[in-house]
């Protein structure tokens, strides 16, 4: 029996076990919505802006590990996805973006709501497709899921012209994909693994530098085993946070620009740096020549292009980090490194993370309390800015996939929609959005989506009446000439909470936090907590541009 290509698309999604689509309808994707109408297995979440759809799909993917799916119409619908697609690309998140397109006869004529979205998203997708032949659609969808979820994950976009969506085809979902140019390497080379095991045994001061790849590969358990077996301290990149227990004695916290001093000093002093699923990002290395100057660098990553891109690697190994770690663990025995671990303890004692408690409500204090009350086990979504760095520093994550945040792209406005996606992907779990007064107002419209979906999000807003991270940059780089960073108007956030049927709180003092935070977190339904914090508080330590990570400023 023949069905429309749009119906075939929905059947393909069902075959891929898609349970939820975040979308926004329009003219060009009408056939797809018409097909969705008949689906009993896919739940459609209507967002308030397409950017919300793509970030929500991203948040859902980060929590579940599945491919997140979002759907938009042509033209503005498609362009509104762009930030979110770029975000997923930078953070290697598996995502499928479906866009409607004008009919094939109109493509290229500057038709109403036409944009060349495959052209626009070329540099920010792992791959994309413009479907011209309806019979090829099932194969394309199959390939898209395969490409998005395997190897180094990433977003894939399928652009579906309206007439193609309406064409009748015989539906058959292919059992396999044919992609001669796409064959990710999973198994690490055994000789190399053996060589690495030998080098680890010889090293005296190893540091494990673990990134988001650990989470993509679900290799947190193997990471913990390795660290304990070889007695190596672990530092995380921002993307790698939550892949190693935040309260573990071997944990050094985050490294880099706003990393802990002890993580940065350990990396500077180490004789071996074991990079696992990390990419030596500029916010991690800062001044390249002074990064891990004494270390033999072992770089394990699934993406060959990351190896040797920024730093010279002594021992490269391409493959799936989980499989490689399992193989590596077999070739290793318990190694005791008391002198090195003593040194780490010394560094931790000498340079702890600190902030000044002067009676005012400090943002760091709020995050510390949040970490304590949730025992590091809540799912924490964040936006981008100072609050995000304070979460990275003061929240002690205990379980993988519990930090939902925009790392590589640093897209403000990510938080709320991503928290919505994360919450839908983890029913019954406590999801806390830590955000700022700047970020929240970028995608605040999604409060409507949150309510409609009945999600009990706890939104903790660190409100300093300014764009704190930029303000901090202007303090350091522009000698305090604050331009375009101060808000002179804010809505009444308690009234805003009320307007969206949320319970509103305002925290002004440490006592408020101590007394009311547990209550706010335990309140059923959505909660908006407005924490009034001083605008001049800076994220410290901070490594200034051009400096090595061992020489941060403290305040």
């Amino acid at each position, binding site marked *: 029996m023949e069905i429309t290509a749009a119906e075939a698309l929905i059947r393909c999604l069902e075959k891929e076990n898609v349970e939820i689509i975040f979308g926004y309808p329009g003219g060009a994707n009408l056939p797809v919505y018409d097909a969705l109408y008949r689906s009993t297995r896919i739940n459609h979440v209507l967002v308030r802006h397409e950017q919300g759809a793509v970030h929500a799909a991203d948040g859902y993917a980060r929590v579940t590990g599945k491919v997140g799916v979002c759907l938009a119409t042509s033209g503005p619908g498609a362009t509104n996805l762009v930030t979110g697609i770029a975000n997923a690309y930078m953070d290697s998140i598996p995502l499928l973006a479906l866009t409607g397109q004008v009919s094939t006869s109109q493509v290229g004529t500057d038709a109403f709501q036409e944009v060349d979205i*495959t*052209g626009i998203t*070329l*540099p920010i997708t*792992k*791959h994309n497709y*413009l479907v011209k032949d309806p019979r090829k659609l099932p194969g394309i969808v199959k390939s898209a899921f395969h*490409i998005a979820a395997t190897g180094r994950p990433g977003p894939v976009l399928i652009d579906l012209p309206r007439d193609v969506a309406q064409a009748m085809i015989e539906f058959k979902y292919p059992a396999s994909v044919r*992609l*001669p*140019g*796409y064959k990710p*390497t999973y198994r690490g*080379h055994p000789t*190399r693994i053996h060589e690495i095991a030998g080098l680890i045994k010889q090293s005296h001061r190893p540091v494990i530098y673990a990134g988001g790849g650990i989470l993509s590969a679900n290799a947190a358990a193997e990471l913990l085993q390795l660290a304990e077996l070889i007695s190596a301290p672990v530092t995380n990149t921002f993307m790698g946070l939550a892949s190693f227990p935040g309260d573990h004695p071997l944990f050094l916290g985050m490294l880099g620009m706003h990393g802990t001093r002890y993580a940065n000093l350990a990396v500077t002093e180490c004789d071996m740096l074991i990079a696992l699923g990390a990419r030596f990002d500029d916010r991690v290395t800062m001044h390249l020549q002074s990064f891990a100057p004494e270390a033999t660098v072992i770089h394990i990553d699934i*993406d*060959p*292009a990351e*190896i*040797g*891109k920024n730093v010279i690697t002594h021992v*490269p*190994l*391409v493959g799936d980090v989980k499989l490689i770690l399992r193989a590596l663990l077999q070739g290793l025995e318990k190694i005791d490194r008391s002198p090195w671990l003593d040194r780490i303890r010394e560094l931790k004692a000498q340079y702890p993370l600190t902030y000044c408690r002067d009676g005012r409500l400090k943002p760091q204090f709020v995050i510390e309390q949040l970490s304590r009350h949730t025992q590091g086990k809540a799912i924490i979504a964040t936006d981008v800015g100072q609050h995000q760095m304070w979460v990275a520093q003061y929240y002690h994550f205990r379980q993988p996939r519990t930090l939902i945040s925009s790392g590589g792209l640093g897209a403000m406005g990510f938080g709320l929609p991503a928290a919505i996606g994360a919450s839908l992907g983890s029913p019954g779990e406590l999801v806390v959005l830590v955000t700022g007064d700047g970020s929240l107002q970028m995608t605040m419209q999604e409060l409507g989506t949150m309510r409609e979906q009945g999600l009990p999000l706890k939104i903790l807003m660190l409100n300093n009446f300014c764009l704190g991270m930029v303000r901090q940059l202007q303090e350091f780089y522009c000698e305090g000439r604050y331009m375009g960073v101060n808000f002179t108007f804010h809505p009444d956030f308690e009234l805003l909470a009320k307007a969206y049927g949320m319970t509103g709180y305002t925290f002004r003092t440490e006592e408020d936090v101590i007394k009311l935070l547990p209550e706010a977190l335990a309140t059923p339904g959505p909660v908006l907590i407005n924490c009034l914090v001083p605008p001049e508080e800076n994220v410290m330590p901070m490594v200034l541009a051009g400096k090595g990570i061992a020489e941060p400023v403290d305040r």
Partner: protein
Amino acid sequence: MVVPARELLGVVAVEGGFGRMKHTLAVLVENRPGVLVRVAGLFSRRGFNIESLTVGRTENPDVSRMTIEVDGDDRLIEQVTKQLHKLIDVIKISDISREEYVDRDLVMIKVAAEPSQRVEIMQMAGIFRARVVDLGRKTMTLECTGNEGKINAFEESLRPYGIKELVRTGKVAMLRGSKFAGVGSGTRSSSDDE
């Protein structure tokens, strides 16, 4: 899409970079619309310079072959190769300039030629084994194939007569002997991580 501006200007100096040299990459890609844009876009956004690029069909109708000339040191070429490999439509990449290879470029030159000069120009063409492919009242069009050096020499020898129009196909290249850069061949592709 050949003949970079600096070559037209006669600038041959290559600046900076240890071990910097021209590499010729044979890139096999799926014969699909948009592949050229993907490859060209990758070069521009990653800041790699293409010296020349040609595309054409191969023995397999589903596969096209690009010959890309890139100028850079080994590290850059490694990055170019790895980034190209990330494109789903790219099947295989071989840096054939690491081995013995043959390369050819084709040029067509329309040169000013009064009837009295034709014999002289034809004799010159003979030296380069070029052929006359068209004749106008005051022009001659010649075709010549060869490697880059020969084509450049041919162009120089015609320059005094007045070159009215010139077009080059860009370089195509192939490994010598029984080695292949094609699909399923034994030649080690430089994508291998080891």
